[in-house]
């Protein structure tokens, strides 16, 4: 799978992935090398997918790239070589379609968008900054309920809290009884 990892001279699939990210992510993806980091995240994500899904998404990228040649406004160019308006129109047309190929492109779009919005600075821009919040409410929890929490945590380790009855309807014999 050629997408993950840095590539000084970008291979076609990576070029297509970059172009796709530039189209499906908000315009700010072109700032501060965000596209590179999105592709880095995307590569990691692909690496965690099952082989079938990885293959399917890789195939979707190739189809996306080469399929653009059949899109009349592209005048025979691959997706990676389209200018912005044509690339955007091509992706819009693909996403509006039904069928397996369109479904794969939608999934690809979902993965890329997910990677973009996993960038911390992008999250801060939309008002999502969970780390300080998590620290504050975790602290509040301990201050408010410390003794109860310690008692509850200990309860998970108390021996012998298994139910003492299984009831007569747990039919069938135990050891020493007839089967």
């Amino acid at each position, binding site marked *: 799978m050629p997408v993950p990892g840095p590539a000084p001279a970008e291979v076609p699939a990576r070029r297509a992935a970059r172009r796709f990210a530039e189209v499906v*992510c908000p315009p700010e993806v072109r700032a501060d090398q965000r596209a590179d980091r999105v592709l880095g995240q995307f590569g*990691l994500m692909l690496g965690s997918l099952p082989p079938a899904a990885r293959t399917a998404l890789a195939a979707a990228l190739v189809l996306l790239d080469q399929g653009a040649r059949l899109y009349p406004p592209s005048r025979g160019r691959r997706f990676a070589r389209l200018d912005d308006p044509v690339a955007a129109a091509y992706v*819009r047309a693909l996403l509006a379609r039904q069928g397996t190929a369109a479904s794969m492109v939608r999934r690809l779009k979902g993965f890329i*968008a997910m990677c973009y*919005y996993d960038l911390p600075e992008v999250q801060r821009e939309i008002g999502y900054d969970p780390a300080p919040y*998590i620290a504050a409410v975790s602290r509040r*929890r301990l201050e408010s309920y410390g003794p*109860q929490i310690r008692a509850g945590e200990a309860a*998970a380790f108390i021996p012998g809290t298994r139910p003492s009855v299984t009831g007569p309807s747990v039919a069938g014999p*135990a050891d020493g009884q007839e089967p």
Partner: protein
Amino acid sequence: MISGLSTQDDVAGDLSLECGAVIVGSGAGGATVAAELAEAGVDVIVLEEGGYHPTESFTAGTGRALRTLYRDGGGGLAIGRPSVLYAEGRCVGGSTVVNGGMAWRTPARVLQRWAEQEGLRAISEQDLDPYFTVIESRLSVGLQDPETIGRDSGLFRSGAEARGWNVIPNRRNQLHCAGTNNCSSGCPSGAKRSMLVTSVPRALAFGARLFADCRVDRITRSGPGVTGVSGHVVRPGGRKGPRLTVRARTVIVAGGAVQTPALLMRSGLRPASGRLGRGLSLHPNAVVTAFFDEDVTGWQGVHQAYQVREFLAEGLLLTATNLTPPMLAAILPAHGRELGELMAGYNHIVTAGPLVEDTGTGRVRNLPGLGPQVFYQLTDRDAARVVRGVELTAQALFTAGARRVLLPFDGAPVVRGPDELRRLLARPVPRRSLQLFSIHLMGTARMSEDPGRGVVGSFGEFHGVPGLFVTDASVFPGPIGINPMETVIALAMRNARRLIERRGRLGI
């Protein structure tokens, strides 16, 4: 390092182990059985394919969580029309580490149906009550502290109640939950009483051994019975490490409704019923995205604080579930500048939706070179239920003050009010356009006392293979319509009790 716990870092060469009972999987089923057996003095080994990730390692990073805590990056796909995205945990503690922490007893009507249809023993409400009582004490099941409930949950509740619907507070396995809203990426405060912080350390404290990063490839057999399992250590990046062999007279499989049947099939087990891998239910979910004028900041405070139970008789459960920005961006029907504009309103969004008690079924198959693959066919009836659940959810959100909603149907326009919603849904919604996902997979190694109908018996014993047991959601004979974790744990505890009573006969 915790006593009794080993990871791939601790294994340099091939491993050959011996024990009384080997358990495959450390989630709700596996960890529970492990703790019970270890406490009773059984020599237990637990093998977990995923890694060990302690509470201190959990952050709000969605991508990192998907890669480290979930199988296949959370990107499972049940192929069908429509396909259904699904996610399963793969880490020490299993899916309990990444679920929402909802803890509900099995509905009595479901238990009654199972008993009647499958002849199951000891599965009435009264039979399971003692187990539920212990579980709820040990896992601190209860209601949220009020200060931790998010505004998104409050809005959804207000909309539902204004429509006169039955809304109940959710019961969760949490010990004074802080409301970090980080359930699906691992609870960073440890308040969620997942198996990672309860039954796994309990099992270890009673002498069990747990090997993380160990994948079981096969159950080994001799004659009609089992002799253990074989597999390999999983190195970083999924590379295959040293070989692993565990000899045991009892094998307990608890890998979940996809991996359990896949392992059993890989091991050449073919129950007479032909039901192994079949009968998959998955409680399809859909997400309605609503935009409010007010600042909701739904990521502050626990999600799913309430459930709308008004439509349970129709097989519908409604709830508000906040999605992190990456998860939301992945499903929004927009891209480019439009996606940016929608996401800019992230703090004004409430996401909610239905969970459907499905009537359709699917199948798990091992495909050569690809491994387990899930196939699922949504029925027309269930598709209609999804649409109905989406409509009800949108109605509640509009009643709560939403200005516009996005529906989980491919190509659906933005809906700006109840009238538009009614007009839109007056036309049929194509089944294949539904955007569905699932986190509740069940039923691929179903319980039945009749070997001609099921894969395992009342207590998880595999029909016709002495010493082999299954105890996870795959044994459910059908969907249960609510969150399944507590049912899995109760059945595991009950099955463990049965094993302990028969330990002499089993040789453990």
